[in-house]
């Protein structure tokens, strides 16, 4: 693979002024974090919206992490792990998937807008896909605007 050239950075932040959401991304160390690394190595550009928190496995992601992020003011949350069957810990993502399924449906039920919390599987080889997921999630959250539900605006 030819690594695309490092073009000299030009100080023209494309979306300056527009709502730039803050999205907390929980990435599993072995696949999705590696996928994010590959996106970097391949210089694939995506919006500067996400802030990554590295976890050993998507199975480590407690629903509290997700809700806490929304409560503290994240506009969106992304959780990403290995594709089914690829889990470094054999079955961590299967276990997580059930939990995420319940959380996903429960949040939708509670009226948290679909798209506020996203889940994805991104492998270590999917740099472009990782970027695509980030673009997609960012766009969805941008459409929704700043998160108000579950947000704890300030101290009592």
């Amino acid at each position, binding site marked *: 693979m030819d690594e695309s050239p490092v073009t000299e950075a030009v100080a023209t932040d494309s979306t300056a002024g527009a709502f730039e959401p803050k999205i907390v991304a929980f990435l599993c160390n072995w696949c999705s974090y590696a996928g994010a690394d590959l996106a970097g190595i391949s210089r694939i550009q995506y919006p500067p919206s996400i802030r990554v928190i590295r976890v050993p496995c998507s199975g480590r992601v407690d*629903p*509290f992490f997700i*809700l*806490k992020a929304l*409560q503290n003011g994240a506009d969106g949350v992304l959780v990403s792990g290995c594709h*089914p*069957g690829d889990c470094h810990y054999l*079955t961590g993502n*299967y*276990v997580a*998937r*059930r*939990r*995420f*399924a*319940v*959380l*996903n*449906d*429960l*949040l*939708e*039920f*509670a*009226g*948290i*807008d*679909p798209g506020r919390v*996203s*889940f*994805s*599987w991104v492998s270590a080889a999917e740099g472009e896909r990782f970027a695509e*997921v980030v673009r*997609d*999630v960012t766009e969805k959250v941008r459409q929704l605007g700043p998160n108000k*539900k*579950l*947000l*704890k*605006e300030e101290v*009592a």
Partner: protein
Amino acid sequence: MSREEQLRKRAKELLAKKEVVMVICYRAGKRPGTATPAFVTRPDGADSLVFDDRCGMNLAAYLPRVKHLGRIAVVAKGCDSRSLVTLLKEKQVTRDQLLILGVGCEGVKEKGKLSDACATCAYPNPVICDEMIGEKVTEPPPAPDPLADFEKLTPDERWQVLADDVSRCIRCYACRQVCPNCYCPTCFVDTNSPQWVGKTTAESDNMMFHLMRAMHMAGRCVECGSCSRGCPMGIDLMRFNRKVAKIVKERFGATAGLVPDEPPALAAFDPGDKQEFIQ
């Protein structure tokens, strides 16, 4: 012999023969139309026992507190028996600690009205018991989905309805205390480092509490309705728990509290679980 007489006779027998150290059932409350859990340890105490449509409290909630005394006989209607199954699954009691006296249930009345939970009950008869007291009741036809109307609302409307409802929450945790599923030594609301749930009654904190409580009920809640009936503020807590039960049933084909040997739905997985929500 009426069911009540059978019940008293059997309780008396069990205590007299020392087959059990205690019978957990109900007795009439001081207020007309109410009943309160009764814990009988002597044969003559059995004379006050009742079982009828006043007897709502889920008796499974008491087992973790008294199981150390010895073998306990517990009167179980459908939902209590399912809660016992959950406790068995989670090894909070062992089968030999229990003598389950099953009773068919036609629904619990609150202020003369059938309790919300009972209106949609699919398991009025015990799913597990050692002996039946009286006859089983006829299984009701499947009830319409009680969440259907709510789920038709827009996300904003749904949020608003729930936010209004939980805004009354005074964080007394009665819902937790009456729930047979809640037996953690320290509840997540009481932990710090990290303190996941703020102690205030702000909308965000209250919602966080109820959403997380619902998460903890997934695959475990048997929809007995104790939480809603127990809430001093009249919050429709069952709505959350019904939802997770529905999710678990639709997604994983699992219904809580039916098969003691099956792991709880969230302690298991199937490689073929649906994942349409994952990109």
